């Protein structure tokens, strides 16, 4: 299978702290891949490295063969990578529709001068943008909420709006940072189905950071485990669940020798607990 994103020996340091240590990582095209790991394992830092928020210290990241680790965030977005945030970061004082319109920024080309003059091309372009924004709103099940300020939307709707805004940049790779955080089981189920839909209908590769083990195990084709900035395991959900290194990272030394039979259960239990804490 063709690979859409490759990271080679990526190192990111904050002063003396090595947040990401020599990580190799691939995302196959049109796949759903997850990164998991305990708190502080460097997952979000790794996301930031891909999207250009933090410049990496060593190694290289390339997207469809183009090196991107020296580009600005907006240039990376232009190439086709978009993301959502762990703590929702919508534009709170803009409407839902405006949030999506901002996401379409890259595909609108009218200059400010033609906007001031109000040329027919600008009108046509704005009209098309509105239609597209409305379509995206419907796609994430927010029909009729376009005129509401983002801050006044309920939590689940904000999550979905953030995904719609990310989709507005027409990405080939979508990075979702803990999309199910704070959701109830029913919403989580909906979300899982929705992520599948995005991949299947739009052909977008998806990289997830997720703590919710049911989501991760149910949705991912491949999983990468980070601990203290290092990759400790990689494989299919089944392989990861039985990997002693992973269980050790999550539950501590001893757990891996304490009988593999019920490790599964304890593993997912402990995660739900740590989440609710």
């Amino acid at each position, binding site marked *: 299978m063709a690979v859409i994103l490759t990271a080679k020996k990526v190192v990111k340091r904050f002063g003396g702290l090595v947040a990401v240590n020599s990580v190799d990582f691939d995302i196959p095209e049109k796949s759903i891949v997850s990164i998991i790991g305990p708190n502080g394992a460097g997952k979000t830092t790794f996301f930031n490295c891909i999207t250009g928020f933090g410049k990496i210290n060593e190694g290289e990241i390339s997207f469809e063969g183009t090196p991107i680790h020296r580009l600005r965030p*907006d240039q990376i977005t232009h190439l086709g990578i978009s993301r959502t945030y762990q703590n929702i970061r919508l534009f709170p004082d803009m409407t839902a529709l405006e949030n999506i319109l901002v*996401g379409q920024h890259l595909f609108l080309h009218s200059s400010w001068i033609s906007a001031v003059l109000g040329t027919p091309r600008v009108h046509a372009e704005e009209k098309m943008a509105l239609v597209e924004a409305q379509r995206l709103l419907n796609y994430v099940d927010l029909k009729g909420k376009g005129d509401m*300020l983002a*801050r006044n939307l309920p939590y689940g709707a904000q999550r979905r709006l953030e995904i719609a805004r990310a989709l507005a940049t027409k990405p080939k790779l979508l990075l979702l940072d803990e999309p199910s955080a704070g959701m109830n089981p029913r919403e989580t189920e909906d979300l899982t189905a929705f992520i599948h839909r995005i991949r299947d209908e739009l052909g977008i590769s998806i990289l997830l950071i997720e703590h919710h083990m049911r989501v991760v195990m149910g949705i991912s084709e491949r999983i990468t485990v980070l601990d203290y900035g290092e990759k400790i395991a990689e494989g299919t959900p089944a392989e990861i669940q039985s990997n002693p290194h992973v269980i050790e990272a999550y539950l501590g030394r001893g757990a891996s020798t304490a009988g593999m039979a019920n490790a599964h259960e304890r593993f997912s239990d402990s995660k739900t607990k740590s989440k609710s804490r």
Partner: protein
Amino acid sequence: MMKKDNLTWIAIKTGLLSGVIAIFLCLIGMVEVFSKRDVVEKIITLGDFILLATAVSAGVIAARAASQTDQQRQPLKSLFAGALAGITTGVLIAAFIGLSQQINLRSVFLSASPSLFNLLTFKGGTSWIWMYPAIGIAAGLLGTTLFLLPEKFRQPITRAIFITFLMALFSGLFRVVMINQSSGIAKLAKYLFGQTGLTLSGAIIFFVAVVAISMFWSARSKNLQEGFARIPKRGQTSIRVVVFALLAYVVLMLPQVSGPFIAQVIVIVSLYALMGLGLNITLGFAGLLDLGFVAFFAVGAYTVGLLTSYGIFGLQHIPFWVAAPIAVLVSMMFGAFLGLPVLGIRGDYLAIATLGFGEIVRLLAGSDFLAPFFGGPQGIIGIQKPCLGTLGEFIRVDVPRVCNGLEFAGPKEIYYLAVASAILVAFIALRLQRSRLGRAWMAIREDEDVAEALGINLIQTKLLAYMLGAAFAGLGGAIFTVLVGSIFATSMQLIVSINVVALIIVGGMGSIPGVIVGAIALIGMPELLREVSEYRFLFYGAALIMMMLAKPEGLWPSQATLRELHHEDAGEDSEIAPAKSSQAKA
């Protein structure tokens, strides 16, 4: 019992506070200065009015506090609280007068002059002091009554008081304007407006008229709006056209009717509106606080000065119509020049950096070092007025070129230039706000990192905000130069930048009509009311604090803010709706 004590204490506290405010207004000389103006001739002066207003508002506040202590409305309790607050105010003022008879306050407070006390004691000595508690009770009760009135009557009455008061403040202006008209209008003017304030009959007429109109409007406005909606589309458009034509006619004729003083005030308001619209782009839209905004005004002014002056510093002698666009372009370049080094700076640091930039421009322009180019402290004089027609040849220094045609010599002509520019720039700003660029600015204001992650080029977008903001301010500077006919570095003070920031905040951040309302309120009013202009900064400070407390969104908030308020009312619906939709999905 406890509750009642509590209420008594609140009422006394309110009264003490308003009494202290009243004494403060006396001691800074405001009451004395304002006493020279009447609200209603021979009945109540402006000075009396503000003293009375403190007691009345004490009554309103105390009454409100009384109504909040209980679920039910108890008019007697409110009246008691209002009267108590009023009497406390009165007693405090009386005590102040009594004290001032014993001690010479003048050694500390310059304004505590004998004439002030003559005013306060109605020229009757201390024997009249007992009046104050009595007036205080009356005023407190008046405030309480106002508060207790049902909404239907309260709103028209408060509106009527406010508008009659405004009419009284501007009565001199109305009188001057109307007296120059036909004899009928002149007679009407003399009937309504006296020399120093409204006549009694004028005050009654305005009060009754506003109450009547306001009550009629609140009863019928829905019908009228529906009636308007029922008119066919074509009819609606023609009504709009007629209204617009009427407005345009008023704008065109105003300086001819009102004379140069009002024209000049409107020019200054327009210039501040131009700067406000510029800063509204950088601060209101893109969220980049610029405290050195006057720098761009200076750049625009000096560019036009150097390019058109017939004095010794004139480099070129081109017409204003060519120089103004050049000034706008040069200001834009300066905008980029300022923007580049501060691109990565955010928030407070940006404010300080731009503050420095503004001061640097002013100091450089006025420095001896650059005096050979910019005239230093002597400034640039002899700036050619704009001329609609052919301009005569430049002969020699200090001789203005002859204008064959319409010369924009004074405020009455420059009025058209300034107002037209302000309208044009407001239109441009409106178009920008609704464009892709406007959305990008707002995204940067809300969250810079996320905006960048959505593909917005921060460097380009921020620079455009600085450049376009600077361009508008530069145009303002260009017009200011030809209005005054000279430029001095001393007119580019920091206070100008602060005024512009203040008018944006008062008007409503990010709102284009708000900028214009803010410019009228903060610049136009003090210019028109000479008495107020002495206390301009007191007025500013009070206005800003009151805005932040009572109406943080500004006088004319932007659409987004309005929508926000609207949706907070409907907040409960929005909580329910998504549950439905997720069920529908499942």
